[in-house]
């Protein structure tokens, strides 16, 4: 296979032609979309638009085939055992809410415990908080080590309390740190817990293998994987999905309805009430198919190169406080300029057309433990170039200069 050609890769994103002056390093918030994805959506609306699983007519059947092929593309990408283990939903947040809601009263009873970690995104905290509070379930939280990684010793100790559910992110959306998910799943399963992985950041870093990883649930959003907004995936093992109480009820998820008695349809339909985001699913599947034309090892290499260059460059700028470690890092760097507020740093970068995010990145509990008011976050994607890295470094230097003048 030829080497990874970043220019060829980048050319497929019309965005960079439209906004050539920008350095986009906010990839952990959302990614840009290759033309293949935009074309798939356009094509669907222009040629095949119809509702799915409802039609007596061939147009609807065609749309259904495309929609179900999208499910199959996702299933084989993450190596799910069955097609019906892929539930389409509106995003990672929706998926995590479905899981938290759906496990109450089935897997989780009052007095039971669940286990989260200190570095979770709010989407993997608040849904649990709300439902656990209502249902009397106790939440334990795995603390972090001094290196801002999940403390595996504490993890094992907390597992000994017998949580029924353990939920953690594959990759921290703030720090970029890759968690030892395989090991964490293994330990959790040995302790008899249901395992949930928030793969919102993990999915774009590597192609996760559900059967090998052996977790019970894995969720992600399409828009962080080169795909459209408004679509996400809830993967679950069959027997786990069977336990899930649907958070949405409505058309096509029931088998029969009367005002006396209603019975549910089978998976995946039981968990996909209403008209799904058909174009969204097709767009996501186009993203995955497109991505598979590239060698992910080479992409990872390319991203490590960017990261290495970035870390290297940072050492030459005074007063930079780096929160992310460069080891086991998926391409996200959180940092501050000493004693400056991240909002100021981000604004000055913005003036130089470097797009980063600043703040607490929907991970307040992490920041309360990092004891910083926030950070700016530079998150790199495969379409970023060494030039992007250098422009960002230069802009940071300029920023520090202005702030400390």
């Amino acid at each position, binding site marked *: 296979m030829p080497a990874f050609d970043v220019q060829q890769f980048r050319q497929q994103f019309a965005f960079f032609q439209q906004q050539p002056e920008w350095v986009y390093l906010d990839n952990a918030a959302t990614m840009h979309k290759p033309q293949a994805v935009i074309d798939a959506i356009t094509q669907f609306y222009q040629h095949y638009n119809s509702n*799915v*699983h*409802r*039609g*007596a007519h*061939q147009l*609807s*059947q065609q749309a*259904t*085939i495309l929609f*179900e092929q999208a499910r199959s593309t996702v299933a084989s990408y993450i190596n799910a055992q069955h097609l019906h283990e892929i539930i389409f939903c509106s995003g990672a947040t929706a998926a995590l809410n479905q899981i938290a809601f759906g496990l109450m009263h089935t897997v989780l009873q009052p007095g039971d415990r669940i286990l989260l970690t200190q570095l979770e995104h709010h989407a993997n905290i608040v849904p649990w908080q709300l439902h656990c509070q209502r249902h009397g379930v106790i939440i334990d939280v795995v603390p972090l080590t001094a290196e801002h990684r999940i403390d595996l010793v504490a993890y094992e100790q907390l597992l000994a309390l017998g949580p029924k559910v353990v939920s953690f992110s594959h990759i921290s959306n703030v720090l970029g740190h890759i968690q030892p998910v395989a090991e964490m799943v293994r330990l959790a399963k040995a302790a008899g817990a249901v395992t949930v992985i928030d793969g919102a950041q993990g999915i774009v870093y590597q192609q996760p293998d559900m059967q090998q990883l052996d977790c019970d649930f894995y969720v992600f959003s399409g828009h962080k994987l080169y795909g459209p907004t408004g679509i996400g995936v809830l993967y679950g093992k069959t027997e786990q999905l069977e336990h899930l109480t649907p958070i949405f009820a409505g058309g*096509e998820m029931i*088998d029969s309805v009367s005002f006396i008695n209603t019975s549910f349809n089978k998976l995946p*339909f039981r968990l996909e009430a209403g008209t799904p985001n058909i174009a969204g699913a097709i767009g996501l599947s186009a993203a995955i198919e497109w991505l598979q034309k590239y060698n992910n090892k080479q992409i990872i290499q390319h991203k490590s190169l960017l990261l290495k260059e970035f870390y290297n460059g940072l050492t030459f700028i005074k007063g930079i406080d780096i929160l992310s470690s460069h080891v086991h890092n998926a391409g996200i760097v959180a940092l501050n300029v000493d004693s400056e507020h991240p909002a100021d740093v981000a604004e000055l970068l913005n003036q130089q057309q470097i797009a980063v995010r600043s703040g607490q990145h929907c991970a307040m509990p992490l920041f309360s433990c990092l004891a910083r008011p926030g950070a700016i976050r530079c998150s790199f994607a495969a379409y970023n170039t060494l030039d992007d890295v250098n422009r960002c470094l230069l802009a940071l230097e300029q920023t520090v200069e202005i702030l400390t003048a």
Partner: protein
Amino acid sequence: MTLEQLLADTKPVLLDIQQRNLAEIEQARDWQAKYRVLMQLGKKLPAIPEKMKQPELLVKGCESRAWLMHYHDKATDKHYFVLDSEARIVKGLMAIMLCLVNGMTTTELCQFDLCHKFDQLNLKPYLSQSRGNGLTAMVSRIKQCCK
């Protein structure tokens, strides 16, 4: 009426379909002709009496209901079926499928590829993945019988 009787009544019908109607369908000059044959097949296939249509026999498509009864001859390891549907065209399609699978052994049934067969008969479009289509549901119900 018993399952045995139904099976006995169904057998010659299936034979006739195989010997005569499949060719008719393949050679139909237009879709109207093809559908006329399909509906005749549906009519020819013995109906399951209302009283015997127990809820557990129900195979649901989105638009019409169908029922399946199964008999496994352990001695010969052969599977036999009787089926019925509310909708005439779907019943006709199911009749064709039935005459392909009836009497298969467990292994044959597991390996059976309806898609391929229907393709030969130019009937593949009716095997969509849409839940609307009761036929797909029927095939997977039949496949479960060999487990």
